[in-house]
């Protein structure tokens, strides 16, 4: 499933515009310890994090995450959105909690991938 389709189905707002939304999202990874994310997230994961600082873009780029998902309506810094957009990484904003995102995403993509 493409990131932009995922965002639409999940009712998420794409903060970074359309660019990057053509990546395939194949899973979800939820964690806020950046070193842990670096070594455990997989290419194609939608990465759920409460962090909104600039380094999120670097971690998403290095792990080849499909997109960054910021839960619970947390405001994302403008500089981070700009940086991510430059790197072709979508940042999706959701009003849901990480748990709810994981649950719904699993129903949407997890069962298809399994």
């Amino acid at each position: 499933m493409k990131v932009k389709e995922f965002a639409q189905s999940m009712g998420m707002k794409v903060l970074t515009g359309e660019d990057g939304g053509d990546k395939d999202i194949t899973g979800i990874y939820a964690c806020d310890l950046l070193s842990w994310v670096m070594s455990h997230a997989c290419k194609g994961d939608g990465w759920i994090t409460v962090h909104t600082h600039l380094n999120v873009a670097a971690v998403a780029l290095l792990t080849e995450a499909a997109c960054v998902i910021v839960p619970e309506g947390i405001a994302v810094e403008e500089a981070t959105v700009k940086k991510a957009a430059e790197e072709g990484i979508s940042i999706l904003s959701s009003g849901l909690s990480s748990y709810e995102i994981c649950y719904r995403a699993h129903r949407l993509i997890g069962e298809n991938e399994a």
Partner: protein
Amino acid sequence: MDNRITLHYIIPGDDFSVAGEASSSVKKTLTHLGILPGIIKKAAIAMYEAEINVVIHAGGGEADISIDAEKVTIQLKDQGPGIPDLEMAMREGYSTASDSVREMGFGAGMGLPNMKRYADSLDIDTTVGKGTTVTIIVYIK
């Protein structure tokens, strides 16, 4: 013919806005060179951790990367405080990072263990009060 590629980066200290940019740039270069994704991942993670350490702990430093047909050699050099107890620093979960750094998601005590895990060869030359040089090698072949 010498097919070696060398890259050089200045890593500013305590500036999280650019932390990880050198690693991202190296990753892009390796991708352009057509290196296998698994190899790139190893090099990128090991270098990112080393880069973040230079930003957090050392007040900045420099990175020199050399890529040839056989290996990627990544060297990060700083004139920071050095690592007093390297054995402790290598333990997963051990960290001397400040609370403010931890709140950003860094300082989980996984930097050096991650470097060891993803580098094929890791050499840490550190002197308290003088600085640290980390040399990471990832083999392409």
